[in-house]
């Protein structure tokens, strides 16, 4: 690849290390869909940033040949907030699991959502802790037998859609790793949404939670029920919340979308206003001199 001739960005260029995921893991399909969307959107390769915490799914950045960062467990969104706020030129993507996002990282998700940080977050939800080998996760179904719930999970799981909607996320969707086209559509819409966009993607952990999403996988005899946006007004938060109540496996598609100012824009406005008041970008030395004059 030459630096000067802008070539078409292809899956080949975007592919990095071969994923270390187990054969059959749902995460492969998420990766493939992401590549396809990027091929479509043709962002400059160097402007793409993938960020993740810790987990099987969070190994994502290694498998994408773009700038990437593999952070600590649960804090990827907080780190990505810094990247997004300070670098409006970048396309910021965060990938991670249900444990990373809803357990240890649950609070950052809330605050990213209400602040409407401009980035796209894909939760690869397998209803289990994969990397640490089968402990109950916040989305594990009641009765699920894991190493930490040998007699079956007893804690009511998080409802990701409800959580995201009420936290104030401005784009909230749900998809399934067995449905590549659907994933692509969701990711694309999420990426094009200005603000904090989230796609919860059911992604089967074949090793520790095999068959968990068969109910919504037509190839496994399940039903993949998508949201009919003729019927569902995606800007209606109450309708979205009501739909989130549906029993598992529930519906797939965009639950909620509402444009509102991003923190990125609001902070930039403050910067612009401050500098305008000073008559444009000021020399730091002058700013410092002025402030020190007052301290005399």
């Amino acid at each position, binding site marked *: *690849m*030459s*630096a000067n001739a802008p070539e078409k960005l292809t899956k080949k*260029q975007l592919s*990095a*290390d071969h994923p270390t995921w187990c054969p059959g893991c749902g995460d492969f399909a998420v990766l493939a869909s992401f590549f396809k969307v990027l091929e479509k959107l043709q962002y400059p*390769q*160097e*402007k*793409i*940033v993938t960020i993740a915490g810790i987990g099987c799914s969070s190994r994502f*950045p*290694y498998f994408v*040949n*773009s*700038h*990437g*960062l*593999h*952070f*600590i467990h649960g*804090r990827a969104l*907080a*780190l*990505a*907030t*810094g*990247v*997004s*706020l*300070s*670098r409006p*030129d*970048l396309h910021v993507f965060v990938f991670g699991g249900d444990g990373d996002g809803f357990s240890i990282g649950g*609070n*950052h998700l*809330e*605050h990213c959502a209400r602040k409407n940080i401009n980035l796209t977050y894909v939760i690869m939800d397998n209803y289990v802790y994969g990397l640490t080998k089968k402990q109950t996760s916040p989305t594990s179904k009641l009765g699920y037998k894991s190493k930490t719930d040998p007699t079956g999970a007893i804690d009511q799981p998080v409802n990701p859609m409800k959580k995201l909607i009420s936290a104030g996320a401005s784009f909230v969707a749900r998809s399934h790793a067995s449905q590549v086209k659907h994933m692509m559509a969701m990711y694309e819409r999420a990426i094009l949404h200005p603000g904090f966009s989230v796609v919860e993607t059911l992604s089967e952990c074949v090793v520790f939670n095999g068959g968990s999403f068969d109910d919504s996988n037509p190839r496994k005899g399940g039903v993949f029920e998508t949201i009919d946006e003729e019927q569902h007004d995606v800007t209606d938060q109450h309708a979205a919340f009501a739909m989130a109540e549906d029993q598992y496996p529930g519906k797939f598609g965009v639950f909620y979308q509402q444009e509102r100012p991003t923190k990125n824009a609001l*902070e930039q406005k*403050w*910067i612009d*206003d*401050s*500098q305008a008041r*000073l008559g444009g*970008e*000021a020399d*730091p*030395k002058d*700013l*410092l*001199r002025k*402030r*020190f004059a007052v*301290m*005399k």
Partner: protein
Amino acid sequence: MTIAADEPPVQGSDHSELSTPPLQDLQNAVIRFAGNSQDGIQTIGGFLARLAGRSAREVMTYMTIPSTISGGPSIFQVHLGSGEVLSAGDDTDFLVAFYQHSYDNHLSSLRDGGICIYDTDFVEPDLSDKRYEFIGLPITSTTIEAIGGSTKSRGKNMFVLGLVTSIFQLDRDKLVGIIERQFGKKDESVLRNVMLAFDAGYAYPIGDVYKNRFSLKAGTSTGSDRVTTDGNTALTYGLLAGGVRFGAGYPITPWSPVMEVLRSELPKYGGLFLQAEDELAAVSAALGYAYAGHLAVTGSSGPGLSLKMEALSYASMAELPLVVINVQRGGPSTGLPTSVEQSDLMQAIYGSHGDAPRVVLAPQDVEDCFYIAVEACRIARKYSTQVIVLSDQALSSRIEVFDEPDWDAVVVEDEGPALEDRPDDFKPYPLDGDTRHAPPGAKMLGGKYPVVTGLEHDEWGHPSANPEMHQKMTNRRRDKLKRLMEEIPTPEVFGDAKGDVLLVGWGSTYGPLREATGLLRDQGKQVSHMQIRHLHPLPKDLGEVFDQFDHVIVAEMNDEGLYGQGQLATLLRGRYANPKIKSITKTDGLTFKIREIVAGVSEHTGNA
């Protein structure tokens, strides 16, 4: 050490003795205002400090913050001097007591022969106490009378300021200028009331008696007005001068003012400060800026620093640059949020899991808060490392006077992310060179983009569990700090380069240690002093310096631990295995008194 030594001290409080004023021409004066925090004593303390800056005088202040939320007993102490002012003063020369509790709790802070000015409306002193002189005047009622009753006792502080101005023959015009600048922005009536109260105090007859007794010598003028500010402010502007444009934090006392000023100031510089949901998010977001190619800052006080330890371990592994401020306070846990302590040094160096080398610096006074912040920025950039700056509660809020920095020499232009293309053979972590990250936005001509990780990795940043690689990379992360060690100057020794005792300190103990050293030297003792500003790595030739002394005594405000050594003393002994290194420690939440240091030195040297 506060009143010029050739003046005989005043004895008793028989006012008739005062007809021939025995005290004049003070070089130094320590004045303590004791009241409630609502009384605005901080305000007048601030005015006096600023006046000092404009009069070529030195100043150091000290204040306490009430533990109740709604305010309550509080003091503000001002040490004014025409010579070097190194501490807020062990004892006070003048006590202004607003209430009975002020009198009761603070009378003992007066040196023998000191003067207690009290509000006769609230205080009933024990006039038979012959150690001190007492001057009572109806501060409250006179103020109410002066202002006209409506604002009740508000304005007492300005009355007292007027009184003090008259007693010490301070420059009334300059002071009024400062007052006007402060209050002029507000409603006109505010300034009027303020001046009414001030003038009432200034003109109050009792002042006349003392007028000629205390004239505070002016210092040698440097021509230009000097800067008067507190440690948190100096530190904050040091960060701006050092090129920090992005930051993230969460409020906590006494760190909050740093983040508040950064949040207000950064937009002017084209940057921003994020108030995060907690300290974990704050340090993470700051690392996000760092990854994005910006020099960034995060900070907190003890509890918040503990929360940052995991992410700082990541930063060490990933070698992302970051400046981290810790405005230390009394610990452990919530501890004493408004008291001073230096008990976070070990955590700063060793608090993260794994071998996570990072740099630790500590400013020695308010001015140094500025310069250490600039240096922290430089080091973080140069070595792509984390620099923890250990300030403390005392430094954060005390006011000192110093020369305006030479901006042209000191300011680092922020160059923003280094987005140039990276060559084929780009390696962020070369085994034989400095770490250099390629931030997002930079094109990789080799076609392969980097992933920054907290897993052990090879030169390209790829995760690697190879034993040899882990060994090499651990060495690499350590050795870059050894390179930094080579460039750290050996701290200056005050006094002789050899002798009986070398007093060693770090951080805000600089003033008291230097003052104690001066005192001991005046007594003919062979005592020298060294303040260490670079705590990790330590300067390289300390061993040679120590060799020139019979005793190396480290004084610090933290606990002696299980083996009788403070934290820096432990580090120095760990490094040099030199049994000459001894420790003076304390954890009472107060800055060192000169006499405590003197006593500690005698104890270790056996010269009682």
